[in-house]
């Protein structure tokens, strides 16, 4: 393993420690829970608190989106493993400015259970908790079973929209509705060209043969919908766009935001090569690209691959997307 590691068991604690140290101008560690990162100004009095959380190994997600205008407090799990209910609960408490908290997280068994337990605990603490579960990954279930779909990079848009709505002073229910609307407006797909390795395991989680690709792969290497010969960048990009847009089925003229994220080990220039073709496919359907993001926004350790997320916009979402943000992974550097 050509990796920068100390004891593999310590990697999450070290990551969080390095993260809060590097971005001490924007975030801080929870005083009693080394697995909770809070925005420097959290909780903001009379603002709805935004909480997220998830397994580690997706950096800059989830912690990187903690900061003004986005997420108030983030619960951190082991690599590819949900944070504890306790961490979600501590994050909720850290985000609570007296106006309720909305937990915006991804649809995974562990996260569902831990958030549910944390919400019960928070209710005992008299904090109103609403939740939105991201399920933007089109490959993980058919459209009629959307509630089974995984949450992937669309979560970033959900946090941005929900965070900006909260920053405007909206109520918890309004924030929940805006975030729910954002994720409902998102569709994503991922493709994998190479696997990743959990350091404590020491060998790749799964295999992708050289010359093959796995379409519909999950953020933890969950198997995709098909393993085929690796096509050209144009072919892969066109197929990803097709999967997302067929599922999305937006009327021509709809404005969209586009996010292309590398999974960890894909050279950045190739993301632009993919984007170029995806954008043409999106515009080819009569959609109008309002804003695009290309980079490593939501990764899977050192997986080779990329994800495409398309969010349909309306006037409110456009305004919320443009609202100021200052978190380490998004916004002012």
């Amino acid at each position, binding site marked *: 393993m050509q990796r920068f590691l100390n004891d593999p068991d310590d990697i999450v604690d070290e990551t969080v420690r390095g993260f809060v140290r590097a971005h001490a101008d924007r975030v801080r560690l929870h005083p009693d829970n080394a697995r909770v990162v809070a925005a420097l100004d959290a909780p903001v009095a009379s603002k709805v608190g935004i909480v997220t959380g998830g397994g580690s190994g997706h950096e800059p997600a989830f912690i990187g989106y903690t900061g003004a205008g986005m997420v108030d407090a983030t619960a951190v799990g*082991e690599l590819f493993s949900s944070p504890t*209910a306790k961490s979600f609960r501590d994050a909720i408490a850290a985000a609570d400015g007296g106006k309720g908290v909305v937990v915006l997280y991804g649809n995974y068994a*562990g996260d569902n259970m831990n958030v549910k337990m944390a919400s019960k605990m928070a209710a005992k603490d008299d904090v109103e908790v609403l939740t939105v579960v991201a399920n933007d990954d089109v490959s*993980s279930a058919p459209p009629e079973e959307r509630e089974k779909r995984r949450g992937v990079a669309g979560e970033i848009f959900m946090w941005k929209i929900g965070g900006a709505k909260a920053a405007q002073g909206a109520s918890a229910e309004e924030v929940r509705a805006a975030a729910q609307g954002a994720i409902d407006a998102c569709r994503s797909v991922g493709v994998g060209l190479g696997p990743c390795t959990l350091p404590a395991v020491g060998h790749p989680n799964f295999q992708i043969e050289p010359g093959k690709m796995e379409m519909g792969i999950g953020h933890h290497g969950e198997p995709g919908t098909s393993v085929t010969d690796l096509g050209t960048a144009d072919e892969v990009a066109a197929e990803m766009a097709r999967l997302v847009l067929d599922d999305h089925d937006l009327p021509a003229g709809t404005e969209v935001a586009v996010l292309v994220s590398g999974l960890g080990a894909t050279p950045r220039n190739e993301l632009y090569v993919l984007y170029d073709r995806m954008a043409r496919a999106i515009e080819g359907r009569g959609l109008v690209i309002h804003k695009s993001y290309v980079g490593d926004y939501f990764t899977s350790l050192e997986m080779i691959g990329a994800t495409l997320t398309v969010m349909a916009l309306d006037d409110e979402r456009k305004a919320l997307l443009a609202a100021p943000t200052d978190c380490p992974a998004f916004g002012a550097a």
Partner: protein
Amino acid sequence: MSSFANAGAGAIIRDIAAVIVENRAYLSEIDGKIGDGDHGVNMAKGFGRAAERIGDDASLGEAMATLSDVLMSEIGGSMGPLYGMFFLEMSETIEDLGAIDADTFAAMLRAGLDGVASVGSAKVGDKTMMDALVPAVAAAEAGHPDMAVLLRHVAEAAEAGRDSTEDMVAKIGRSSRLGERSRGVLDAGATSCAMILRGLCDGAAARLDA
């Protein structure tokens, strides 16, 4: 009716932890085939940590409470809540008891099962730990005049349940959307669950007073 003493039986949990830690790579490997490959890592971390905190004279109930606490507050993932609730409910069932007989053992497992069901909502056939746990509880509740035999039945039911997952198509969790591709591999959670129940039954059997 034979039974075993709650006091001092915390060592059973330490023995179970040793088995889980030993099978760290194996459990991850199974999970890797149709899941995300971390089951052994997280289980070993949680059980290993808990074992260090279980004293020599801990009762089974105390040891289960310690394990539950570590799983729920330090491990997270799916196993934190699922096994966390499993051991929490079991520990609460027996915490005030001096000895555990066959009926209490069955009641304890039933409470554990209910705890798991309260957070997950998997059913038998979904290819999860439930496939090992549900038949084990049924075996316990079926009863047997000889508690040693009963304990053997419980462990064997769990293992048969585990084996049954090999030919199942996953219906819940990460692997559920694999469809047919999830067939042909044991479920990781069912495998660890059978190990736990085997350890519990063997540990209890070794301590039976009569």
